[in-house]
């Protein structure tokens, strides 16, 4: 579980009184300050210009005013807090609309208590929140452009994998790990963790395959010069590249490509190697 960096001012918006109570108790116990609202109009009145709160935990299925409409109104405030959408509605249309309206994270109900605590504690501050540019928000073709930060990698992974939540667990885990590796590679090596640089991500789904394409703003790399990566190790020495990384002053790691190749069916780079496509073939019914 993540450490609490500081207490957040949180508004829980849900028409389920029991859930409001449970979330309040849970998050207050973790050092946060809580307020609750049972519907959209009450929440908007409490929020005012948004400056009094850091985070809103927002249900989508609210009476009288949809949570997605509340989200849109919050995003137009002078000092919008971050919004974590929580819903039992698992349709891709709802998720994609939440992405388009700049939800910070998306959590599917029901969720274990530890999940909400982790998501709240890992959230950045409203002032540091960066936007995801949505190019296409169709279930079969999601395309976004996002700043190169590690926090953004968590957000993107959360959204993208919720779209595939119906997949068998083993397939989803493999895709999640591979996608995460390639995305963090793009953000770290291509984008240098620079929020002014952007990574472009396309997720295409057909009945028989999942395809993720990630383009980073870097110059690419020469695979023959990747002595700091595990893929160049001889079979009998799976740690040789670590010595190279130590000599080059790189952090421990270098297993990403080796892992990714084993987790998906195809991994295709463009000539410069600053764009990559990850493909997972699906059995019928997956």
């Amino acid at each position, binding site marked *: 579980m993540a450490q609490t960096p500081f207490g957040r001012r949180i508004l829980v918006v849900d028409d389920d009184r029991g859930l409001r109570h449970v979330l309040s108790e849970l998050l207050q116990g973790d050092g946060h300050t809580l307020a609750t609202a049972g519907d959209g109009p009450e929440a908007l009145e409490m929020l005012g210009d948004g400056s009094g709160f850091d985070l809103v935990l927002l249900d989508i299925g609210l009476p009288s005013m949809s949570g997605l409409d509340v989200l849109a109104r919050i995003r137009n405030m002078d000092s919008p807090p971050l919004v974590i959408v929580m819903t039992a509605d698992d349709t891709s249309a709802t998720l994609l609309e939440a992405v388009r309206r700049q939800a910070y994270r998306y959590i599917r109900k029901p969720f274990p208590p530890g999940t909400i605590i982790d998501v709240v504690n890992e959230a950045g501050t409203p002032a540091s929140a960066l936007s995801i540019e949505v190019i296409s928000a169709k279930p079969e073709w999601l395309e976004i452009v996002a700043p190169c930060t590690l926090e953004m990698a968590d957000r993107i992974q959360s959204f993208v994998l919720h779209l595939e939540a119906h997949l068998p667990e083993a397939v989803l885990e493999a895709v999640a790990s591979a996608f995460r*590796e390639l995305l963090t590679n793009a953000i770290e090596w291509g984008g240098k963790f620079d929020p002014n640089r952007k990574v472009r991500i396309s997720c295409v789904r057909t009945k028989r395959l999942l395809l993720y394409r990630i383009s980073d703003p870097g110059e690419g790399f020469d695979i023959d010069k990747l002595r700091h990566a*595990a893929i160049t190790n001889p079979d009998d020495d799976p740690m040789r590249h670590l010595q190279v990384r130590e000599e080059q002053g790189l952090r421990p*790691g*270098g297993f990403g490509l*080796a892992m990714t190749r084993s987790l998906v069916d195809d991994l295709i780079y463009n000539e410069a190697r600053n764009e990559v496509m990850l493909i997972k073939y699906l059995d019928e019914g997956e």
Partner: protein
Amino acid sequence: MRIVERRIGDVTILQLIGRLELETGDLILRDTINRLVDDGQVKVVLDMKEVTRLDSAGIGMLVSKYLTVRRAGGTIKILHPNERTDHLMDITKLHTVFEVFNDEESVVKSFGGAIHGV
């Protein structure tokens, strides 16, 4: 990630809880093991049962700290790898590096003999 630390004899058991990933748990693990090595505690068990996510940076830190402890004359052993951890260790060929156990008594007993540095 957080780490719960306890000792059985001269064996230190670190229970890892949460995400062992880039800039998340990897740095906590690094600092904890560096401190143990500084204190001369070089018989280390990593209980991985409650690791919820593991990426290549986390695996890289596991291996890096394995080398640190080996150079200090000790070793790190893995306890309770979940299915995912086990799979990733297999992919990265780290089963040939780490000794892996599924019960605590066995891993503690396995430290009975002398350990030599590399």
